[in-house]
């Protein structure tokens, strides 16, 4: 009979982090879009593009890339809490995006150490064999057991 899955504590923490980050990014992104819309509302003609860049000048391409992925964390959080295997994979993929951005920042002299450490810890934890079993496995951990001498 398949073993009922139990959610490791760390998964709950990661899910909450994803949720909080996602909600924060959603609020941040929405406010930016509203701000952008308001800026555009009173303007016409070719100046629109200039104003667009003015309105978002403190937002880099990095932010525009990160925010949509981070918002997806809201959905991922639910998947993580229900131990859905695809949520595990998608969270790993999300960490790959974060790592790429962190490494890009690092080589451009904008090191964000805390964020990098959190991402590394998340990857390490999600890749632990027991955690993987919680998402993928239905049998007790048999790692290391072998009938071969």
């Amino acid at each position: 009979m398949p073993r009922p899955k139990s959610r490791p504590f760390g998964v709950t923490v990661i899910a909450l982090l994803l949720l909080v980050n996602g909600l924060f990014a959603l609020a941040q992104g929405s406010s930016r879009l509203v701000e952008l819309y308001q800026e555009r509302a009173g303007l016409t003609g070719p100046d629109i593009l200039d104003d667009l860049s003015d309105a978002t000048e403190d937002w880099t391409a990095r932010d525009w890339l990160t925010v949509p992925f981070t918002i997806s964390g809201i959905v991922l959080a639910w998947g993580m809490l229900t131990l859905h295997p695809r949520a595990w994979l998608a969270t790993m993929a999300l960490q790959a995006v974060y790592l790429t951005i962190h490494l890009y920042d690092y080589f451009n002299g904008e090191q964000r150490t805390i964020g990098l450490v959190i991402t590394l810890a998340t990857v390490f934890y999600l890749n632990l064999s027991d955690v993987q079993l919680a998402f993928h496995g239905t049998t007790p951990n048999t790692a290391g057991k072998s009938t071969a001498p």
Partner: protein
Amino acid sequence: MSEQPPDDLTLLRQYEPLLRHTNGEHFFPTRVERYVERSALWFRPADGPAVELIPSGGLEIDRLGLPLPYEDTPGIHFLQFAKPLTGRALQRVINRRGRPRFRGRGRLARVGLVARLVDAFFTVSLWLRGTVPGGTAAAAEEAYVEMQAERESYTYYGRVLRQDGYVILHYLFFYCMNDWRSSFHGVNDHEADWEQVFIYLENCDGGDLRPVWIACAAHDGAGDDRRRHWDDPEVEKAGGHPVLYAGAGSHALYFTPGEYLVTVSLSVFRPLLRVLETAMRFWRVTLRQGNPEESPPQLNALFGIPFVDYARGDGLAIGPTGRKTWTPVLLDPVPAWIENYRGLWGFYAKDPVSGENAPAGPKFNRDGTVRRAWHNPLGWSGLLKVAPESCAGDALRHRLATLRNAQSADREAAAEQHAALMPLHAEMRALAEQPRLSEAYQRAWAAVQEKERALNQLRDRIAEREEVIRALESRLAAVEAGDRGDLRAHLVHPDRPQSERDIRLSALAESWAAFSVGLLLVGFVALYLTPQGRLIGLGLLVGLFALIEAIFQRRLATLIVRVTVGLSIFAALLLIYDYFWEIVIVAVFIVALIIIADNLRELRE
């Protein structure tokens, strides 16, 4: 009145195998006489060009058993069966009406890009190594077709050996050519190919003979994995005869029809493989990373060259119930051409790794030493250690008697040592009360310690042996009740054909596999010629290829995980580089906190 035991030829015929070949095969087991008559005998001295000793048409099989010219000169004798065809003659053979055509799924799409890169270097190495010239296989095929047209025959050579309670039926099959490389994209080509099958009959108690084991040769394999129990469901039978499947061109023999992925490992990668294996163990065991329900990646396959051995069995079947029947030749006595001829049975290509050089005869290796399969067929298939089934009880009883004798002797010794130890200890106690006899006390103390340790070790051994005896008794009871145990317990890495899923690849995947390595190399050159952004370009190029590969291999999820883990390791190394001492200090603090917390908990309890 007891029945007359069957003669050797009858025994061979009784169990002769049915060989199923693959559709598209060009060569089948034949008589060596006709092959040798068409061959020339050559000698290549160690330090000079080859000289022809006997031209084609002038050589007879018995001549190979006689002393040959240059026998005392360092060098190698070899035969040359076919002179390579070129131009129109080659096209005539290839386009011959009724020529078997082979169609198979490509091998390259079944493995990853790294293996394909290694394969590309292997292909390049063929230009540098000595190889059988192109057109040789076609020439050999033409000669073989002529030989069969003169007199069609399908021959095996057989001998019967009686060793250690077994009667061993040794079947030898001679093919004019191994055209695995040129006709089936395999590892090598060489003139002449000897394949063999062993059937081990039981003759322990002198009763009726019955088959218990069967072993067959495949490439250079030997040992337990080449052997199957006669009653193993994998051993297919046709009218009481075993059915074996010959690889197309290679003629390696398998028990199950299918397509076998043969990975040839290159020794140059061994140090790298060892490092990777250590890192993998650290990753999976120490750091507990990765999904334990997934088998770890086969690092060996990562740097191996993939080849497919097509043993489909959909072509000509030779033997009982097959389309063609055998002409057996009993090797009794063993003819002089087997006993004495140590040279190669085909063209010597001067290939340093020997894959393209023809093999020697059934008795000898290429270096002139005697083949184990010839002089010790039990050892070749790992059977020297296995008692015949009807003697299995005897073997267990013999071992039990040996262990019980040793147990009695050790028990007696333990009792004696124990009896001696107690007075010695009493003496030591007495000496301890006399300060002036301190030296004698020291000696007695040391003696007591030593004898006590020896006695403890002896008792440990007795206890352990008792467990072994109990296990043997349990096994003996099972054997006496007719339990033969797991018939496949001896198999460690048995050959397994690829699954339908592995073989069923789209035409697009096959095309990509054919183009990918070339495109990657062109991409590298283009990057080299680009003045800027080489590093980013290299990353994008490798990333793009990895993505396409993952899609075709249906391993997108694996790619995502590996990319994430790879980026993590890289980022972690950067952090360690930047914050080494900070990390050390934090680690020391954490360890100190854990120790304090642990001690406090103990104190509280």
